[in-house]
Protein backbone atom coordinates (compact mmCIF):
# COMPACT_ATOMS: atom_id res chain seq x y z
CA UNK A 1 0.00 0.00 0.00
CA UNK A 2 2.86 2.33 0.92
CA UNK A 3 4.49 1.62 -2.43
CA UNK A 4 1.26 2.40 -4.27
CA UNK A 5 0.89 5.69 -2.36
CA UNK A 6 4.50 6.70 -3.11
CA UNK A 7 4.05 5.79 -6.78
CA UNK A 8 0.99 8.02 -7.01
CA UNK A 9 2.98 10.90 -5.52
CA UNK A 10 5.55 10.52 -8.28
CA UNK A 11 2.98 10.75 -11.05
CA UNK A 12 3.29 13.97 -13.06
CA UNK A 13 0.70 16.60 -12.27
CA UNK A 14 -0.60 16.45 -15.82
CA UNK A 15 -2.07 13.00 -15.20
CA UNK A 16 -4.13 14.35 -12.31
CA UNK A 17 -5.32 17.39 -14.15
CA UNK A 18 -8.54 17.29 -16.11
CA UNK A 19 -6.80 19.22 -18.85
CA UNK A 20 -4.42 17.56 -21.25
CA UNK A 21 -2.29 19.10 -24.00
CA UNK A 22 -1.63 17.58 -27.42
CA UNK A 23 0.27 18.49 -30.58
CA UNK A 24 2.27 21.33 -29.08
CA UNK A 25 4.90 22.98 -31.29
CA UNK A 26 6.70 26.27 -31.82
CA UNK A 27 6.93 27.95 -35.21
CA UNK A 28 10.52 28.43 -36.29
CA UNK A 29 11.64 31.99 -36.93
CA UNK A 30 14.90 33.75 -37.79
CA UNK A 31 17.22 33.99 -34.74
CA UNK A 32 17.04 37.80 -34.88
CA UNK A 33 13.34 37.75 -33.96
CA UNK A 34 12.71 38.03 -30.18
CA UNK A 35 9.23 36.45 -30.28
CA UNK A 36 7.88 33.01 -31.10
CA UNK A 37 4.39 31.57 -31.58
CA UNK A 38 3.30 28.27 -30.04
CA UNK A 39 0.39 26.08 -31.12
CA UNK A 40 -1.35 23.23 -29.30
CA UNK A 41 -4.64 21.51 -28.54
CA UNK A 42 -6.09 21.75 -25.01
CA UNK A 43 -8.47 18.94 -24.10
CA UNK A 44 -10.87 19.16 -21.17
CA UNK A 45 -12.21 15.74 -20.18
CA UNK A 46 -14.21 17.01 -17.22
CA UNK A 47 -17.81 18.19 -17.20
CA UNK A 48 -16.98 21.70 -16.08
CA UNK A 49 -15.18 24.57 -17.73
CA UNK A 50 -11.45 24.86 -16.98
CA UNK A 51 -9.13 27.83 -17.36
CA UNK A 52 -5.39 28.17 -17.73
CA UNK A 53 -4.53 30.78 -15.10
CA UNK A 54 -0.99 31.55 -16.22
CA UNK A 55 1.54 30.37 -18.78
CA UNK A 56 5.29 30.62 -18.23
CA UNK A 57 8.51 29.51 -19.87
CA UNK A 58 12.02 29.45 -18.42
CA UNK A 59 13.29 30.62 -21.82
CA UNK A 60 11.01 33.69 -22.08
CA UNK A 61 10.10 36.49 -19.69
CA UNK A 62 6.51 36.54 -20.84
CA UNK A 63 4.02 34.14 -22.45
CA UNK A 64 0.56 35.41 -23.40
CA UNK A 65 -2.35 33.88 -25.29
CA UNK A 66 -2.99 35.94 -28.43
CA UNK A 67 -5.37 35.77 -31.33
CA UNK A 68 -4.78 36.68 -34.95
CA UNK A 69 -7.85 37.80 -36.85
CA UNK A 70 -8.34 38.67 -40.50
CA UNK A 71 -10.92 41.36 -41.08
CA UNK A 72 -11.40 43.28 -44.34
CA UNK A 73 -8.05 41.99 -45.55
CA UNK A 74 -6.18 43.26 -42.45
CA UNK A 75 -4.39 40.93 -40.05
CA UNK A 76 -4.53 41.98 -36.38
CA UNK A 77 -3.09 40.29 -33.32
CA UNK A 78 -4.57 40.94 -29.87
CA UNK A 79 -3.88 39.49 -26.41
CA UNK A 80 -6.55 37.27 -24.83
CA UNK A 81 -7.37 37.41 -21.12
CA UNK A 82 -6.96 33.70 -20.49
CA UNK A 83 -7.58 30.39 -22.19
CA UNK A 84 -10.82 28.73 -21.09
CA UNK A 85 -11.85 25.28 -22.26
CA UNK A 86 -15.49 24.30 -21.92
CA UNK A 87 -16.38 20.95 -20.33
CA UNK A 88 -15.86 17.88 -22.53
CA UNK A 89 -14.42 19.91 -25.35
CA UNK A 90 -11.16 21.00 -26.87
CA UNK A 91 -9.55 24.29 -27.78
CA UNK A 92 -7.26 24.29 -30.79
CA UNK A 93 -4.53 26.93 -31.04
CA UNK A 94 -3.37 27.01 -34.65
CA UNK A 95 -1.52 29.26 -37.14
CA UNK A 96 -3.38 32.47 -38.07
CA UNK A 97 -5.77 32.00 -35.13
CA UNK A 98 -5.35 31.63 -31.38
CA UNK A 99 -1.76 31.00 -30.33
CA UNK A 100 0.71 31.58 -27.50
CA UNK A 101 3.02 34.54 -27.94
CA UNK A 102 6.42 33.96 -26.32
CA UNK A 103 8.17 37.28 -25.72
CA UNK A 104 11.53 38.56 -24.48
CA UNK A 105 13.82 35.52 -24.56
CA UNK A 106 16.10 34.96 -21.58
CA UNK A 107 18.52 32.76 -23.57
CA UNK A 108 19.81 32.74 -27.17
CA UNK A 109 17.12 30.98 -29.19
CA UNK A 110 19.05 29.73 -32.23
CA UNK A 111 20.61 26.62 -30.58
CA UNK A 112 17.28 25.49 -29.11
CA UNK A 113 15.38 22.54 -30.54
CA UNK A 114 12.68 22.63 -27.84
CA UNK A 115 11.14 25.27 -25.59
CA UNK A 116 9.60 24.47 -22.22
CA UNK A 117 6.13 25.86 -21.58
CA UNK A 118 4.39 25.57 -18.20
CA UNK A 119 0.61 25.75 -17.96
CA UNK A 120 -0.61 26.80 -14.50
CA UNK A 121 -4.12 25.53 -13.76
CA UNK A 122 -6.64 26.96 -11.30
CA UNK A 123 -6.22 23.99 -8.93
CA UNK A 124 -2.55 24.86 -8.53
CA UNK A 125 -1.19 22.07 -10.69
CA UNK A 126 1.25 22.75 -13.48
CA UNK A 127 1.45 20.95 -16.81
CA UNK A 128 5.01 21.13 -18.12
CA UNK A 129 5.44 20.64 -21.85
CA UNK A 130 8.57 20.49 -23.98
CA UNK A 131 7.51 21.98 -27.31
CA UNK A 132 9.56 21.13 -30.43
CA UNK A 133 10.49 23.96 -32.81
CA UNK A 134 9.27 23.25 -36.34
CA UNK A 135 9.04 24.99 -39.71
CA UNK A 136 5.48 25.94 -40.49
CA UNK A 137 5.53 24.45 -44.01
Amino acid at each position, binding site marked *: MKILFLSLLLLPFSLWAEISINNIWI*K*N*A*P*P*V*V*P*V*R*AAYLTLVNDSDKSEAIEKITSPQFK*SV*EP*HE*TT*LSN*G*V*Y*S*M*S*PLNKLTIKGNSRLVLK*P*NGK*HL*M*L*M*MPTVPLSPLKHIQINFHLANGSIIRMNAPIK*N*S*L
Partner: protein
Amino acid sequence: MNKLALPLIAIAALIGGFLISNTFAPNKLTIKNATWFTKPMAMPTFSFKDHNLKEFDNNRLKGKWSILFFGYTNCPDVCPDSLNMLRTMVAQLEPDLKRKVQIIFITVDPERDTPEKLKQYITFFNKGFIGVHSSLKNLEPFTKRLGIMHYIQKTKMMYNVSHSGNMLVINPNGKYNAVFSPPHDAEQMALDITAMEAYF
Protein backbone atom coordinates in the same frame (compact mmCIF):
# COMPACT_ATOMS: atom_id res chain seq x y z
CA MET B 1 10.63 38.37 -108.92
CA ASN B 2 6.94 38.69 -109.53
CA LYS B 3 5.57 42.16 -108.61
CA LEU B 4 3.07 40.49 -106.35
CA ALA B 5 5.67 38.44 -104.49
CA LEU B 6 6.75 41.10 -101.95
CA PRO B 7 3.24 42.13 -100.88
CA LEU B 8 2.27 38.45 -100.64
CA ILE B 9 5.29 37.71 -98.44
CA ALA B 10 4.43 40.70 -96.26
CA ILE B 11 0.82 39.56 -95.88
CA ALA B 12 1.93 36.00 -95.11
CA ALA B 13 4.35 37.33 -92.48
CA LEU B 14 1.58 39.39 -90.90
CA ILE B 15 -0.81 36.43 -90.80
CA GLY B 16 1.98 34.19 -89.46
CA GLY B 17 2.86 36.74 -86.77
CA PHE B 18 -0.79 37.07 -85.79
CA LEU B 19 -1.20 33.30 -85.53
CA ILE B 20 2.01 32.89 -83.53
CA SER B 21 1.14 35.71 -81.15
CA ASN B 22 -2.31 34.21 -80.61
CA THR B 23 -0.85 30.76 -80.06
CA PHE B 24 1.63 31.86 -77.39
CA ALA B 25 -0.18 34.81 -75.80
CA PRO B 26 -3.72 33.88 -74.77
CA ASN B 27 -6.24 36.67 -75.29
CA LYS B 28 -8.10 35.61 -72.17
CA LEU B 29 -6.58 35.60 -68.71
CA THR B 30 -7.69 32.77 -66.44
CA ILE B 31 -6.70 33.32 -62.82
CA LYS B 32 -8.38 32.11 -59.66
CA ASN B 33 -6.96 33.83 -56.60
CA ALA B 34 -5.93 37.25 -57.87
CA THR B 35 -7.80 40.34 -58.99
CA TRP B 36 -6.38 41.61 -62.30
CA PHE B 37 -6.67 45.26 -63.25
CA THR B 38 -7.36 45.73 -66.95
CA LYS B 39 -5.77 49.18 -66.64
CA PRO B 40 -2.57 48.81 -64.60
CA MET B 41 -2.02 51.63 -62.11
CA ALA B 42 1.08 53.79 -62.00
CA MET B 43 3.09 53.24 -58.81
CA PRO B 44 3.68 56.23 -56.56
CA THR B 45 7.20 57.58 -56.83
CA PHE B 46 9.28 56.22 -53.97
CA SER B 47 12.87 56.01 -52.81
CA PHE B 48 13.52 53.41 -50.10
CA LYS B 49 16.49 51.20 -49.14
CA ASP B 50 16.80 47.46 -49.57
CA HIS B 51 18.27 45.21 -46.87
CA ASN B 52 21.76 45.79 -48.30
CA LEU B 53 21.22 49.56 -48.01
CA LYS B 54 21.03 49.89 -51.81
CA GLU B 55 18.57 52.32 -53.32
CA PHE B 56 15.18 50.71 -53.83
CA ASP B 57 13.03 52.88 -56.08
CA ASN B 58 10.59 52.56 -58.98
CA ASN B 59 13.40 51.45 -61.33
CA ARG B 60 13.93 48.29 -59.25
CA LEU B 61 10.40 47.18 -60.20
CA LYS B 62 11.05 47.25 -63.94
CA GLY B 63 11.77 44.15 -66.04
CA LYS B 64 10.38 41.73 -63.46
CA TRP B 65 7.17 40.60 -61.87
CA SER B 66 7.33 41.91 -58.31
CA ILE B 67 5.23 40.58 -55.44
CA LEU B 68 5.02 43.19 -52.66
CA PHE B 69 4.16 41.98 -49.18
CA PHE B 70 3.90 44.24 -46.12
CA GLY B 71 4.74 42.91 -42.64
CA TYR B 72 7.18 43.15 -39.73
CA THR B 73 9.75 40.90 -38.13
CA ASN B 74 8.13 40.79 -34.66
CA CYS B 75 5.08 39.14 -36.21
CA PRO B 76 5.48 35.48 -35.18
CA ASP B 77 2.25 34.06 -36.57
CA VAL B 78 1.21 35.42 -40.00
CA CYS B 79 4.43 36.80 -41.54
CA PRO B 80 6.55 33.60 -41.31
CA ASP B 81 3.68 31.64 -42.88
CA SER B 82 3.32 34.18 -45.68
CA LEU B 83 7.05 34.15 -46.42
CA ASN B 84 7.20 30.34 -46.30
CA MET B 85 4.22 30.28 -48.65
CA LEU B 86 6.02 32.65 -51.05
CA ARG B 87 9.15 30.47 -50.93
CA THR B 88 7.02 27.43 -51.84
CA MET B 89 5.26 29.43 -54.57
CA VAL B 90 8.51 30.58 -56.20
CA ALA B 91 9.86 27.01 -56.14
CA GLN B 92 6.87 25.91 -58.23
CA LEU B 93 7.50 28.39 -61.06
CA GLU B 94 9.19 27.34 -64.30
CA PRO B 95 12.91 28.31 -64.27
CA ASP B 96 12.52 31.14 -66.84
CA LEU B 97 9.66 32.72 -64.92
CA LYS B 98 11.40 32.16 -61.57
CA ARG B 99 14.19 34.44 -62.79
CA LYS B 100 11.58 37.09 -63.63
CA VAL B 101 9.83 37.09 -60.25
CA GLN B 102 11.08 39.02 -57.21
CA ILE B 103 9.61 38.87 -53.71
CA ILE B 104 9.71 42.16 -51.83
CA PHE B 105 8.97 42.37 -48.09
CA ILE B 106 8.35 45.95 -46.99
CA THR B 107 8.48 46.49 -43.24
CA VAL B 108 5.60 48.39 -41.65
CA ASP B 109 7.58 48.57 -38.39
CA PRO B 110 10.67 50.53 -39.49
CA GLU B 111 11.53 51.66 -35.93
CA ARG B 112 12.26 48.10 -34.74
CA ASP B 113 13.15 46.61 -38.14
CA THR B 114 16.52 48.13 -38.89
CA PRO B 115 17.96 47.24 -42.32
CA GLU B 116 20.45 44.89 -40.61
CA LYS B 117 17.67 43.09 -38.74
CA LEU B 118 15.62 42.99 -41.92
CA LYS B 119 18.54 41.40 -43.76
CA GLN B 120 18.91 38.62 -41.20
CA TYR B 121 15.17 38.11 -41.19
CA ILE B 122 14.37 38.00 -44.89
CA THR B 123 17.39 35.94 -45.99
CA PHE B 124 16.38 33.28 -43.44
CA PHE B 125 13.39 32.48 -45.66
CA ASN B 126 15.10 32.83 -49.04
CA LYS B 127 18.41 34.41 -49.99
CA GLY B 128 16.76 35.94 -53.08
CA PHE B 129 13.98 37.74 -51.21
CA ILE B 130 14.38 41.49 -50.80
CA GLY B 131 13.68 43.33 -47.54
CA VAL B 132 12.78 47.00 -47.92
CA HIS B 133 13.07 49.72 -45.30
CA SER B 134 11.85 53.27 -45.21
CA SER B 135 11.05 55.84 -42.57
CA LEU B 136 7.42 55.76 -41.45
CA LYS B 137 7.07 59.31 -42.78
CA ASN B 138 8.00 58.20 -46.32
CA LEU B 139 6.21 54.87 -46.09
CA GLU B 140 2.78 56.14 -45.10
CA PRO B 141 1.95 58.12 -48.28
CA PHE B 142 3.18 55.15 -50.33
CA THR B 143 1.04 52.54 -48.54
CA LYS B 144 -1.93 54.90 -48.46
CA ARG B 145 -1.82 55.29 -52.25
CA LEU B 146 -1.72 51.52 -52.64
CA GLY B 147 -4.56 50.90 -50.19
CA ILE B 148 -2.33 49.07 -47.70
CA MET B 149 -3.44 49.56 -44.08
CA HIS B 150 -1.01 49.35 -41.16
CA TYR B 151 -1.30 50.69 -37.64
CA ILE B 152 0.21 50.08 -34.22
CA GLN B 153 -1.71 48.27 -31.48
CA LYS B 154 -0.16 48.59 -28.03
CA THR B 155 -0.17 45.60 -25.66
CA LYS B 156 1.03 45.27 -22.05
CA MET B 157 4.55 44.16 -22.91
CA MET B 158 5.18 45.60 -26.37
CA TYR B 159 3.22 46.53 -29.47
CA ASN B 160 1.89 44.72 -32.52
CA VAL B 161 1.31 46.13 -35.99
CA SER B 162 -1.95 45.34 -37.71
CA HIS B 163 -1.33 45.18 -41.44
CA SER B 164 -3.00 44.36 -44.71
CA GLY B 165 -2.48 40.80 -45.92
CA ASN B 166 -2.76 41.77 -49.59
CA MET B 167 0.12 40.86 -51.87
CA LEU B 168 0.48 43.32 -54.73
CA VAL B 169 1.61 42.26 -58.19
CA ILE B 170 3.69 44.82 -60.08
CA ASN B 171 4.13 44.02 -63.77
CA PRO B 172 7.47 44.23 -65.63
CA ASN B 173 6.60 47.79 -66.69
CA GLY B 174 6.63 48.75 -63.01
CA LYS B 175 2.85 49.17 -62.78
CA TYR B 176 0.46 47.80 -60.19
CA ASN B 177 -1.44 45.16 -62.15
CA ALA B 178 -3.03 42.65 -59.74
CA VAL B 179 -3.60 41.82 -56.10
CA PHE B 180 -3.72 38.54 -54.19
CA SER B 181 -5.99 38.87 -51.15
CA PRO B 182 -5.58 36.56 -48.15
CA PRO B 183 -5.71 33.69 -47.48
CA HIS B 184 -3.01 32.69 -49.96
CA ASP B 185 -2.30 29.37 -51.60
CA ALA B 186 1.20 28.77 -53.00
CA GLU B 187 0.19 26.41 -55.78
CA GLN B 188 -2.65 28.58 -57.08
CA MET B 189 -0.54 31.73 -56.82
CA ALA B 190 2.18 30.08 -58.97
CA LEU B 191 -0.45 29.10 -61.56
CA ASP B 192 -1.94 32.60 -61.56
CA ILE B 193 1.45 34.31 -61.98
CA THR B 194 2.29 31.90 -64.81
CA ALA B 195 -1.01 32.85 -66.48
CA MET B 196 -0.28 36.56 -66.01
CA GLU B 197 3.14 36.19 -67.64
CA ALA B 198 1.62 34.34 -70.63
CA TYR B 199 -1.11 36.95 -71.04
CA PHE B 200 1.01 40.06 -70.49
